[in-house]
């Protein structure tokens, strides 16, 4: 049944219908509503989960690690400084191969103190071994909670679903909250292959491992991520059969005959569709490409959609200081081996919640269509020259 929900409550209901069994979380703006609603759902008996109050985000992730290692489906949510405080435990979760799912609200890092959106909190956790899904609508948010548990539990890697602060977290729109029985038919009860119950004969994982074995374990993590990319595509097809909704890892909009492509993520990928329509009316043959995943990075799909284009533009709501926008780096890197490489513009826009409008995207489309890139960073809408 469709309800008008905020992005935050879409996360809460996603965790409920995915039957998360343990939720350990610490509130932080703008994620607080997620935790409040989950704790209410647990208290009212609508959600059959153990809600664990903790004293920090580091402890939240530690509690999820314990719960997941014991064989439970574990969930948490955080944002910005909270995600940063979790960092040690993020690595632990992925190295211990625990399929924890977490929602992160993209909020810019302080100081200066800020609560508005950009991607630097999650971008800077890129190499922790977590899958990262960037969502564009509240429906995608709810559905991604379900999908990411399904994939994470098969490849034994944790997954993070990410939504823009306020622009999704506090925005209400109609969302189909599927019947829990229907979700059960897609996402069966979690059955850990290895749990830490001594009765099952499984010892703890994490003992000192020397150079004779550590390296190979890293290869296995990389292989699990490779496997995850194929599985995300496959599971999305199954998801569509059950729920009638699909989220391609790389989603083209009006790309079929496009000379130019603009690559976007998160809510910008939604606004960009209006900008593409406006550009088309002005005669610019442009398409939008929403990149849903940062890890695993959908390299084959990016190469496929970029083929034969005149020029590309990448909009990053993040920056890797001393380099450039991160999606820009990733996209350039995976096109390096192509025979016919298009020129690529790297735009940085919307840091710290500065609005990214149809008009500002239209301006980036125009620059992509009309000129060759002059530098690796093209600041958009900045007050500094």
């Amino acid at each position: 049944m469709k309800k008008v929900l905020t992005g935050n409550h879409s996360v809460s209901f996603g965790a409920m219908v995915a039957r998360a069994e343990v939720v350990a979380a610490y509130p932080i703006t703008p994620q607080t509503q997620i935790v409040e609603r989950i704790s209410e759902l647990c208290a009212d008996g609508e959600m059959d989960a153990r809600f664990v109050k903790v004293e920090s985000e580091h402890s939240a992730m530690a509690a999820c690690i314990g719960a997941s290692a014991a064989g439970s489906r574990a969930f948490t949510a955080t944002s910005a400084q909270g995600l940063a405080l979790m960092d040690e435990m993020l690595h632990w979760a992925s190295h211990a191969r625990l399929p924890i799912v977490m929602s992160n609200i993209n909020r810019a890092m302080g100081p200066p103190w800020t609560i508005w959106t950009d991607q630097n909190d999650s971008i800077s956790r890129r190499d922790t071994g977590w899958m990262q899904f960037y969502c564009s609508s509240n429906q995608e948010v709810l559905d991604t909670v379900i999908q990411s548990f399904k994939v994470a539990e098969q490849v034994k890697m944790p997954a993070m679903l990410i939504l823009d602060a306020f622009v999704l977290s506090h925005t209400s729109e109609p969302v189909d909250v599927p019947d829990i029985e229907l979700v059960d038919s897609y996402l069966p009860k979690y059955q850990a292959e290895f749990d830490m119950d001594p009765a099952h004969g499984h010892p703890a994982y994490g003992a000192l491992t020397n150079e004779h074995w550590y390296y190979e374990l890293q290869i296995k993590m990389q292989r699990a991520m490779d496997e995850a990319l194929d599985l995300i595509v496959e599971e999305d097809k199954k998801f569509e059969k059950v729920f009638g909704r699909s989220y391609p890892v790389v989603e083209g909009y009006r790309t079929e005959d496009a000379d130019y492509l603009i690559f976007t993520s998160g809510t910008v990928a939604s606004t960009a569709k209006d900008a593409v329509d406006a550009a088309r009316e002005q005669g610019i043959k442009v398409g939008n490409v929403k990149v849903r995943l940062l890890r695993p990075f959908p390299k084959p799909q990016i190469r496929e959609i970029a083929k034969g284009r005149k020029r590309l533009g990448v909009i990053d709501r993040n920056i890797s200081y001393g380099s450039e926008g991160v999606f820009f780096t990733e996209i350039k890197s995976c096109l390096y081996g192509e025979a016919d490489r298009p020129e690529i513009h790297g735009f940085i826009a919307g840091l710290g919640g500065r609005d990214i409008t149809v008009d500002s995207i239209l301006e980036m489309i125009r620059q992509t269509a009309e000129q060759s890139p002059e530098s690796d960073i093209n600041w958009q809408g900045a007050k500094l020259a």
Partner: protein
Amino acid sequence: MIEIRFHGRGGQGAASACKMFADACFRGGKSVQAFPMFGVERRGAPVQSFVRVSDDEIRARHNIENPDYVFVLSETLMNKVDCTAGIKPGGVMVVNTAKDVETLKQAHDLEGDYKVHAINATEIAVKHGLGSMATPIVNTAMLGVAARATGLASIDDLAAVIEESAPAKRAENAKASRDAFAALEL
């Protein structure tokens, strides 16, 4: 697409009003999107909240700068913020005030390419026991006004949403919205 801005004060329920209004429009078959002013809110400080309503899918995810309709929950806000800012040419503004519309226009120099209406939502709210004359809770009455002014939501859908989601005095809130719907003269 129709874009709407509410002006209120922190704690007056302008943000939840927008969500309820979007819900009512959604029940009538529209695509909707509602959001508060992004950021921190202090009780009593001027705030804004927003709604988009469309027959098509809503893909725009950015601030509303040029609303078709503006609803002001308290005339006192107009001394603090420019409630007419960005209003679309030919747009509509409705203000909760005890003044008649001509006095209101003169008091705030409301001369522009937009229509202005006045409604005494405070009186309606207080009649239904929603706050006091000093601190009335007018958000649901102003929702009735918004339904009437925009024609985007039926008053029955709106009253149903209020009955389901108002945090307290649900029946009274729904009645206030119906009374305000009937009282607004366009």
